[in-house]
């Protein structure tokens, strides 16, 4: 992108001025790195360092007290014979597969409603965004637990319609729908991004489509969806990665145990229990790395498949 202007400039400028320019470029780079330094140091010391040591620990038996003992790939191989591990994978995949698309659908639907010009739109936007500001917090998890408990508002509300499910919190079949509702309710962040994307779609396209007699459904699939596809792709990717990392709400709602009957034993919760309750840091590190690798592969698959359905405006196709 920047290549052709540079080339043409090079061909027209004389040697000394070129030298001065590259000198200045060097000074610019130095200044840039100096400004970057605080972040870079923090990144190396607090993120890269621990990640490397956790990679090492994942090949060891480490209980926090004694020096780590090298055991090669043992942690990784025992993982697949650990029933609780397999259960945690099942629970997490379930959550990601059902929770993420539903959340994005809700976000897109609300974003489209809020995109029209009406009075008080600013207020509605803030109101719909609010849950995602507080949604990840401990207090909401506690509220959620109370709402879905025995005789909680949800139980009572449903019983008006003759549905008697009892409390969801103690029922292994109902905990997953409860967590999915919790994540869907926090659609604010992707919604704002969708809204920004919707505003970028030129109105002429819709006007032209109307002239040609297209209805709202056709407009959505033939204009909104393709024009918005980079934003949809971005949100899908971010929300999927985010969903794999669910921890705080699961920890609070199940009292840090992953119950009832293991139905809320999310991957990160099991990782945490292995590390900090059972003192098996090597095992927990192996789990962490496996998650990084799997999320990496999923990201890669997303990018590969995106070529067929994501349209970038810069692309000449």
């Amino acid at each position: 992108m920047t290549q052709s202007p540079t080339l043409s400039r090079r061909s027209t400028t004389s040697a000394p001025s070129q030298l001065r320019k590259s000198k200045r470029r060097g000074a610019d780079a130095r200044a840039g790195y100096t400004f970057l330094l605080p972040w870079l140091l923090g990144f190396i010391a607090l993120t890269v360092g621990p990640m490397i040591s956790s990679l090492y620990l994942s090949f060891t038996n480490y209980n926090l007290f004694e020096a780590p003992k090298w055991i090669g790939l043992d942690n990784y191989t025992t993982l697949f014979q650990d029933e609780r591990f397999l259960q945690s994978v099942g629970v997490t995949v379930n959550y990601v597969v059902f929770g993420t698309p539903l959340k994005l659908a809700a976000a897109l639907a609300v974003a489209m409603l809020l995109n029209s010009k009406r009075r008080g739109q600013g207020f509605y936007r803030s109101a719909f965004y609010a849950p995602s500001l507080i949604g990840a917090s401990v207090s909401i998890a506690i509220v959620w637990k109370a709402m879905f408990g025995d005789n909680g508002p949800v139980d009572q509300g449903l019983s008006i319609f003759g549905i008697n499910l009892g409390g969801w919190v103690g029922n292994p079949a109902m905990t997953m729908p409860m967590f999915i509702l919790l994540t869907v309710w926090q659609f604010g962040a992707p919604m704002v991004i969708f809204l920004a994307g919707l505003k970028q779609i030129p109105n002429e396209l819709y006007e032209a489509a109307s002239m040609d007699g297209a209805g709202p459904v056709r407009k959505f699939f033939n204009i909104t969806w393709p024009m918005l596809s980079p934003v949809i792709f971005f949100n899908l990717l971010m929300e999927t990665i985010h969903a794999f990392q669910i921890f705080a709400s699961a920890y609070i709602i199940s009292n840090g145990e992953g119950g009832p009957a293991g139905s809320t034993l999310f991957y990160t919760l099991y990782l945490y229990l292995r590390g900090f309750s059972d003192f098996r840091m090597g095992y927990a590190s192996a789990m962490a790395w496996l998650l990084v690798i799997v999320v990496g592969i999923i990201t890669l698959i997303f990018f590969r498949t995106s070529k067929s359905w994501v349209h970038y405006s810069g692309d000449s196709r």
Partner: protein
Amino acid sequence: MINRRHFLTTVAVGTASAGVLAACGNGASSSGETGSAENPVTINYTWWGNDDRAERTRKAIALFESKNPDIKVNGNFTDFAGYWQKRATEAAGGGLPDVMQWDLSYLRDYGQRNQLLDLSTVNINTDAFEKSLLPSGQIRGKTYGIPTSTNAFAVYYDPAKLASLGIAEPTGKWTYKEYNDFLTEVGTKSNGALFGGTDYTGVWWMFNIWLRQNNIEAFTEDGKLGFSKDDLKKWWNFTAELRGTPAIASEERVTQLAPKSAFGSNVTATEVTWDNFMAGYLADSGAKELKLVPVPSDDPDNLGLFLKPSMLMVASAKTKYKDAAARFIDFMVNDPEVGQIFKTSRGVPASKTQRDGTTFEGTDKLVVDYEKSIEQYLKDAPEPPIVGFGTLEASFKRISSDLNYGKLDINAATDAWFKEAEDLIKQNA
């Protein structure tokens, strides 16, 4: 609009987040081994518990500081679950507090791994302690913990609830069958409004007591399991016919009440647990009166009961102020005024000096009287359980809960627990 390059950078940031957590320990203060009134040393003390215990502990610390002007105590507390996670990270960073309240379940984990100070090397007076109690703080000839107080297992019941159902109060001389019948009677007579109790077979210590009643050791000397799969199957079969009936509270209910107990929430008429939970149960349930009787046993001469240290005082192996730490521990376990402050909220004071210096009234008296009434049945306290015992205790509870949800049958549950236990023992060998 959105271009591709822009995008890759944003995405890269999102994926990095699975690092290992590291915590910093608290640094010790500056001056040397001992202090003076003008230049006191500061030791850190940490405990688990609720606000009530925090208030009592602050009083005890203030008293200690007024008696020992050369030492300042910096106190800090959390709840039980968070407590062990904090200690783990501190130990990893080499920064455990100087003095800590401790639980028997975790004594081996830290003692055997050289994190705790051998208290026989410092000056703490244990003359006023029952000789049978002290070994529970000792591992391989070293004293890592001094018991503050004792607790014993008991069946709690609410006399008012039984009276309203027209059920006679239990005497505490009962077999498991009689206890089961009692639970069923409560459930039936109340039409399911009140459960008899919770599934007592899910409580590790009750299982341990049953093993003792049958003269089986839970753990062998060399840290292996002392009982067989058949023993555990037999145990979990005790309530096989009660599960899913009004005799015992359904797991759905119990799970939703957590962290509050079913008994404290007035959902059950009885509960089997430690006798020092009395104050907590009274506060939670609002009941006027709760009573204690011994646990069931099929052998009336062997109830399998014992006094366990309800908590211990330990010091960090790395403390710079051994002398100050020892004086604080000695004060907390022996001083009669400390007994007056805590009453039975830590359990019944273990040191006779402290016990005799404390006046017990009302519910405190009930707990003390209960421990007196079972004196003739008491056997030696168990040794500190194996390394990783806290994990085993938790998985015992969890797997028994799966049993109640009908997710596992008794055979599968037994296999699951033994697999975890054997894996853990191998891991820590």
